[in-house]
Structure formats: structure tokens, C-alpha cells
């Protein structure tokens, strides 16, 4: 009996989930999600049979080269399988460690490739642009600016800030950028060191007449051994970072400089239980501005099923956007999808939140900031204008909305990335 596997057009049931025909039955977004939930429930209750059945069906739908739903499902399934391995006791444990092998396509890029990578969609640059706008405004009148950059995109944010500062009426300030030596081991990976990046940035700044000093601060313990598991690495990272931030000496803070702490895709890597402590450490530095950008999704529920559903609902947004931004076989696109696959695995693969990614939505982050003694700084019209200009250069479908005092990047109306600026009370 032949199996039909056809992709139907965009369906009415859910805004833009496309549908898959499977032996005469229509399988679309909601049904895939149902399957995933069945699988999740089965895993949670150790019902292996049901889990197997669900996986079997999902396996027939999933495809890393299909439409966005299929692609996303393939990554979800992969994460679920990895998790299923861990159900099986010690034998499973070794396998699960191995099964947590990093996603394919995770190769180290060159700096120029990374620049291209972050610009495939406005996902990252949205945060860059808004934060830079807030920074620019916050440092008006300062002769010296010091940015502590906690991000996973390796300084891709700064060339445009340098450019803006160079044109500041009254002349540019002296700029310092400091990055920690440790960061979450997530894509994108770069093939050059932080020092090299700093070199190029300094060179660029000079060409614009901006004095730039770049530093890498060593974090606490020596690099964790390569054989330690990712969660341990992550946990170690958090501790290191917290201690580094508490150490004014090592940060090299100076009087008279305007301090900015930029957390870009960072908070979600800080263990939920340690976030308040992290923010305390930040606040203790007395920065003039703290910019926070992250994904607008609640993926930190203790319930696996909730997290799985959340992953499907949220990561679908980027997958759909990628579908309009790049052809199906584009390596750049696959890199982005693999990065999401990594995130999913982190969210779904383990229950232990330490060292894993656990995003919280913008609204909850805002509440957390307020709880920890920060007040929101509104983005001015100029910053918003820059953001709109950025979005106009990308596919239609991208938008921005204000939510409380934050800006949220939207794709087809769905909230994707939030960005906010804060200052200590």
C-alpha cells in the first residue's frame, strides 16, 4: 500500500501551519502538537508503548527538509528520543550523553560569516538596534562609556553602536567593551578568539575616529574539562559569571565612566533559581543602563508536556520566518534551525534546569526586573524608528509592538523577541 505524504497548503486551522497528508488523514499543526503531547505524557508516565507509537507517527511526518512544521517536528522528535534514552537506566545514561551530541551543522564560522548569520532575519538585530538606541540616549553627555557585553553573538552588536557614537554631536566618547571569557556553549560558534574580535573592532572604531578599548575578563575557574557534561559546564559558567560581576577589580571599572550592562540572549541561560542573584550582582555595579533582550516565551515550566507544547508553539515562529527568508536547502537557514534544535533539546531533554535554557517571557522578566530594583526606561521615538527601518529591510511579516515599556518583535503578529532597557531605582 502506498503511502501518501503530501503537503497541503496553509490551513485554516492554525494561522500558518501547513499540513501534511498521511495515508489519507490530514496532519497539521494542531495534530502534530497533539501527537507531541501524547508522546510527552507517555514519557512522563513511563508508558513506553505509547511513546513508541507516537514517535513512530511523528517520525513519518518529520523531515528536516520539508515544510516548517515538518522541520520543527524533526528537531522536536530528536530531542524526545534523546530524552527517551535517558529513561532507560544506566545503559541509557551513557547513550543519552552521547545522544546529546551536538546538532549537525554546528561548525565554527568566520567573523564575516557570523555577520551574515545574524542578519538572515531580524531576530538578533532587532535587539541590537533597540538596545543601541537606548544606550545612545543613556550616555548622552558622557565622555567615557563602558559596556559589559553578555551575549551569545560575539560582538555583532557593536559596529553599529560605534558608528552611531562616531556621529554623536559633540564627538564620540571613549568606549570600552568588556566581555567575559566564558559564555554558554551554544551556537553560533566562531572560529576566532575574543581577542581577535576585539582587535578588529578596535581597528574599525579607529577608522571611525572612536577610541575603543576591548577587554576579556577571565571568569573564575579554569575551563571545565571537555568531558564534563553541558549542564555542568553551564552551572559552572553561571557561578563564574556571578563572581566576575561581583568583582569590580577584575571588571576594571573606573570612575566617571557610564556603565552599560548588555544581556543579549543571556538571561535564559542563567538558571531560574539564580536569576535574582544575577540581577543583584548587576545592580551592585551601579550601571546607568541595563539592556535585556531575549526570546519571548515561557519555556521554564516544570511540566514536560507544557514545555514541549511551548517549544512547538514558539519555535514555529522562526521556522516559518526562515521559510520565507531562505530556500529549503540553504545552509544558512539550516544552521539557524539547528540552533533552535539545540535549544529544544536543552528545554526538552532534561528536567534539571541547571545549565539548560529556560526562557521566560518578557512580561515575567519585566516583573523580575522590577522586583530586583530596576525601573524601565522607555525607548524613544528615534530608537523605535530605527527598529522600524530595520524591519522594513526584511520580509513583510515582521513587525514591532510596544508592550509596557518594552519592544517586542513580531512575526505575523506573534511575539518573538522582547527587548527592554532598565536602570537601577
Amino acid at each position, binding site marked *: 500500500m502506498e*503511502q501518501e505524504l503530501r503537503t497541503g497548503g496553509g490551513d485554516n486551522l492554525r494561522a500558518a501551519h501547513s499540513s501534511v497528508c498521511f495515508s*489519507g*488523514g490530514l496532519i497539521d499543526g494542531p*495534530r502534530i502538537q*497533539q501527537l507531541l503531547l501524547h508522546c510527552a505524557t507517555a514519557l512522563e508516565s513511563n508508558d*513506553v*508503548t505509547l511513546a*513508541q*507509537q507516537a*514517535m*513512530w*507517527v511523528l*517520525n*513519518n511526518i*518529520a523531515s*528536516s*527538509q520539508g515544510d516548517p512544521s515538518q522541520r520543527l517536528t*524533526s528537531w522536536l*522528535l*530528536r530531542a524526545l528520543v*534523546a530524552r*527517551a*534514552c535517558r529513561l*532507560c537506566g544506566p*545503559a*541509557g545514561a551513557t*547513550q543519552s550523553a*552521547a*545522544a*546529546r*551530541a*551536538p546538532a*549537525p551543522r*554546528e561548525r565554527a564560522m*568566520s567573523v*564575516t560569516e557570523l555577520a551574515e548569520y*545574524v*542578519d538572515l532575519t531580524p531576530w538578533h538585530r532587532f535587539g*541590537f*538596534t533597540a538596545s543601541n538606541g537606548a544606550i545612545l540616549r543613556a550616555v548622552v553627555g558622557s565622555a567615557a562609556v563602558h559596556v559589559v557585553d553578555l551575549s551569545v553573538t560575539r560582538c555583532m552588536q557593536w*559596529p*553599529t553602536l560605534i558608528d552611531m557614537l562616531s556621529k554623536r554631536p559633540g564627538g564620540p566618547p571613549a568606549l570600552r567593551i568588556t566581555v567575559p571569557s*566564558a*559564555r554558554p*556553549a551554544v551556537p553560533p*560558534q566562531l*572560529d*576566532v*578568539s575574543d*581577542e581577535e574580535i*576585539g*582587535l578588529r573592532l*578596535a*581597528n574599525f572604531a579607529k577608522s571611525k575616529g572612536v*577610541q575603543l*578599548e576591548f*577587554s576579556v575578563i*577571565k571568569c573564575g575557574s579554569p*575551563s571545565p574539562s571537555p568531558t564534563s557534561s553541558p549542564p555542568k559546564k553551564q552551572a559552572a559558567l553561571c557561578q563564574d559569571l556571578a563572581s566576575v560581576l561581583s568583582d569590580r577589580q577584575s571588571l576594571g571599572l573606573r570612575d566617571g565612566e557610564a556603565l552599560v550592562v548588555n544581556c543579549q540572549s543571556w538571561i535564559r541561560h542563567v538558571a531560574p533559581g539564580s536569576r535574582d542573584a544575577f540581577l543583584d550582582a548587576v545592580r551592585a555595579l551601579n550601571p546607568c543602563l541595563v539592556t535585556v533582550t531575549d526570546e519571548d516565551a515561557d519555556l521554564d515550566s516544570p511540566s514536560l508536556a507544557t514545555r514541549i507544547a511551548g517549544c512547538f508553539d514558539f519555535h514555529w515562529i522562526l521556522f516559518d520566518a526562515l521559510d520565507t527568508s531562505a530556500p529549503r536547502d540553504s545552509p544558512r537557514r539550516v544552521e539557524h534551525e539547528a540552533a533552535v534544535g539545540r535549544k529544544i533539546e536543552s528545554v526538552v531533554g532534561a528536567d534539571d534546569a541547571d545549565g539548560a535554557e529556560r526562557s521566560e517571557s518578557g512580561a515575567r522578566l519585566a516583573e523580575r526586573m522590577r522586583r530586583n530594583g530596576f525601573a524601565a526606561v522607555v525607548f524613544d521615538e528615534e530608537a523605535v524608528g530605527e527598529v522600524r527601518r530595520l524591519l522594513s*529591510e526584511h520580509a513583510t511579516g515582521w513587525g514591532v509592538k510596544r508592550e509596557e515599556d518594552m519592544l517586542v518583535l513580531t512575526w505575523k503578529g506573534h511575539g518573538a523577541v522582547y527587548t527592554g532597557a532598565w536602570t537601577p531605582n
Partner: protein
Amino acid sequence: MEVEATPTTAVSSSGGAAQLPPPGPPAKKKRALPGMPDPDAEVIALSPKTLLATNRFVCEICKKGFQRDQNLQLHRRGHNLPWKLRQRSGKEVRKRVYVCPEPSCVHHDPSRALGDLTGIKKHFCRKHGEKKWKCDKCSKKYAVQSDWKAHVKTCGSREYRCDCGTLFSRRDSFITHRAFCDALAEESAKARAEAPPAEDGSSAAAVVPPPAPPPPPPPAPLRQQPPPPAPHHAEQRNEPETNATEPVQFAPPPPPQVPVLSQTSVSAANVSAGSSSSVAGTSQSLLGGMFAPSSMASAPQFQNLVGGVGRPERALPAKPPSLCLATDASSSIFSAPVSAERQQFAPPPPPSPSPSPHMSATALLQKAAQMGATSSSSSFLRGLGLDVSSSPGASSSGQQHHQEAAMQVSLPDTSLQQWPPRLEPEPAPGLSAGLGLGLPYDSTGAQVCLPELMMGQSSLFSGKPATLDFLGLGMSPTGAPAGRGLPAFIQPIGMAGTGAGAAETFGAGRGAQATPWERNPSSSPIL
């Protein structure tokens, strides 16, 4: 339709094709010069009407017209012609070239005929045809529709061009790229080198070689003293390793001495604010020297080490701060490499067999300038003997992952081989294959199907025991794991991801599967 087919050596056609001089003695086939058609080709001169006609190729059966011959042939297939009629006329088809019917056109001459019918059509339209297509934004007019379409796409968008040749339509992307592009690094180095001499005598004369310089001359002894700030170019000409064109050459430092710089860069955190006053005689002192403008200006002495580093000393004096030399050198050694890179652009000799990984900062920049930002950059880093994993943080895990990935690709084979023995006791052995999870994944992406595994998927939902251990869990109905756990079966899934995507194995079984749930829908509660 006026069509004349003329061999190049014959004369006359209504289109006015001129005569070609007879080809030279062709003992062997002459290769046509670019722009000159093959002398043996058949020159076709079509009239303007024909060229502009849209349906030149007509089907003899149904009289439908087509723009191109290929399309006509495709169409003719649909008529189910008896095989005889399907052939075209038996004669061998000669290569055809086309001339432009416009007498004043350069392509009117058969010796300048164009080889492609579509080409000659477009040419005629563009040059001699009426421009019917107009851009709304800028009112530019086009005779060929495809030209117009292409223009409209980009019209109004300013394009930014980086020195490396890449074009950007988005300003932010351009700026970001430019900041990190090698082209900027080279340009700045040149600019610095060519700056007019203030107290920087040597900088005027010092020139950065172009991105792909020939291998540097053998390192001269580094004891050349930098001249005092006042330029003494004549002196420099005596340098043995001087490049013929440049009066001053950065002496490439002997490799073992280069690492000094980067060592310091890594120990940045440990360098306290006192570096400007740091001790002589150590490598760090060199940087200390660099950091202190005053000492540089008056420093006639090379420190023995890192002679190249010493060079910038005389080049820098006038403008230390703007070169990012922080007066507080506590954590700002990265400004040092900026100046050091100047001398590095006179490429050092290939790194020694065991370069310090920390030389990467400057040598990398320079090497990258040589090689351009190519995707091989990561491999050349390794080729330089740099242990990428020594860099802090992410790159170590990145490399680690590569290694892990490489290791694991081989696993699916071994685990698969464990498969068959397990199959016997299982009620539904084919399910595993059906799931496709057990299929090894080879480098070309082809799935290796073991036919003996692809069987009986229908048993999934047909009245077999409820626990279908197709995942090879060896589990009892209660779900208690057997000793082996999720073995071979699941393992490849995790591993297979190291290929071009786990889901490819996932999708493997798709094509050959039955649809069991149709038979027994009650067994599939999910749907």
C-alpha cells in the same frame, strides 16, 4: 518567414550577410576566438520580423507555435507520433550562429555572429528595438522584459559595497560586515603606514604589502635600531632584507619571539595597571614600552625580542591615544596588537612548528588578510598549529563537538549489526526498520536499507501483543527496562544527527511503509 542558412564560406542572403574570408588551412580544428564564431558554424540571418516573432517554431500536426525549438520538441512528444515521424530530418545539425539584421550593427557581420538564438533576440530588442518596458520609480526604459524585471527589483535600493567586493542592501549589515572584514584591516594598516611623517618618520616609508605578499625574506637579525624620530630613510635602504620597492621594511621577527605579544594578551587580566612602568628585560616590558608614549618617542633601543614590535615604537610616538593605547594598560593590551599588527603585515615567516597559541591575535589577523575571510579559515587556524580549543569558552566546545560528531558517525553501523540477533524474539521486527531509526546514515545522505528489516510493519497494530518492542527496549509490558535499555536502536538516532540531520534517518522508512492504522484504527488512539 525569411530564413537563410549559409555556410560561412558562401555568400549572399537576403539578410545581407557578408562573406567571411575562407578559414585557414584546418589541419586540425581551430578553436574559435572569443567573440568569433566557430568557422564551421552555419550562419543564420533572420529578419527583424522573425526575430521578434514569438512563435517561430510551429508544430506540423496542430500548428501550435512555440518560441523555442526545445519547447516544440517537447510538445511533439505529446502527439504520440509513430517512431518514424518522431525523428527530425536526418541530416546532422550543424552548430548555428546568428547575425543581427540591423546593417549598422557590429553583430551584422557573420564574423561577429552570436551563438545563441535567445541572445540575438535579446540583443536586437535591446539595441534596436522599441523600449516598451518602463520602471515606475526611475523611468528607465527597457526593451527586454527580463531586463526590466531585474531592474525593478533593485531600483531605489542603495547598495553598499565593501572593499572586499561584497554588496549589501542593508546598511546595518554593511557596517557590521565592514567592521570585521579583512579588507578594513589591510586598509587601515596601509593608511597608517602611509601617514605623513610627523614624528613618525618611518611610518611614512613603511608600507604594508598587499594581501598576498610573497613569502617574506629570511629574518634579518633584529638588531637594527629604529632611527630616532627624525626620519633617516637612507639608513633603511641598507637593510639586507629590504624589499626592493620599499625603503623601509618591517623586519619579520623570528618566530619564537613573536608569541610574546599574545602571551601578554592572554594574561591581560593579570597585568596590573603598572604595565607602563613594567620592568625591562621581559617581554612584557616591551609592551610596557609601547604603552608609554614618552618612552617610545625617545626609545632608540630595540628590545631584543620581538623586534618587529619594536618597530612601531618609532612609528607611533605622535599619536598613541588614538591608536587605542590606553594609558592605563591594565586590561587594554589589545591596543598593543593594533600597533603590533602593523609590523605583522609584513608577514612573519611561517609560524614555527609549535607557535604559541596565543600568537593568534595578531598573526591571525595578518594571515586572515592574506587568505581572505574564507570558510577555510577555521582549518587554516588548525593548520597553523593553533590549538583552537585553547581559546576560552565556546570554541573549545565547538571543536570538541566536531570530534564527538566524527566519532559517533561510525556508531550506527556497529549498532545496526547488533540488530539482527535481537530480531528473532521480537514480534514485530520490521517496525524498527519501519521507524527508520536504525538505518545507518552514510555520508552521501543515501539511506542504506536492509531489506530484511523492512517487513511486516502491518504487525504494528494487528492483534499482536500489546507491548511492541520495536524500539528494542527489551521492556516488559510494565515498562520496566531490561538491562540493555534502549540500545542500538535509539542510539543511532542520537548519532545520526551528526550527519546532515537526524530527521533524514527518521524519514527513511517513509517510502516503503504500509499504513497499518487503516486496518486497525482502534489501535491507534492518537489519531
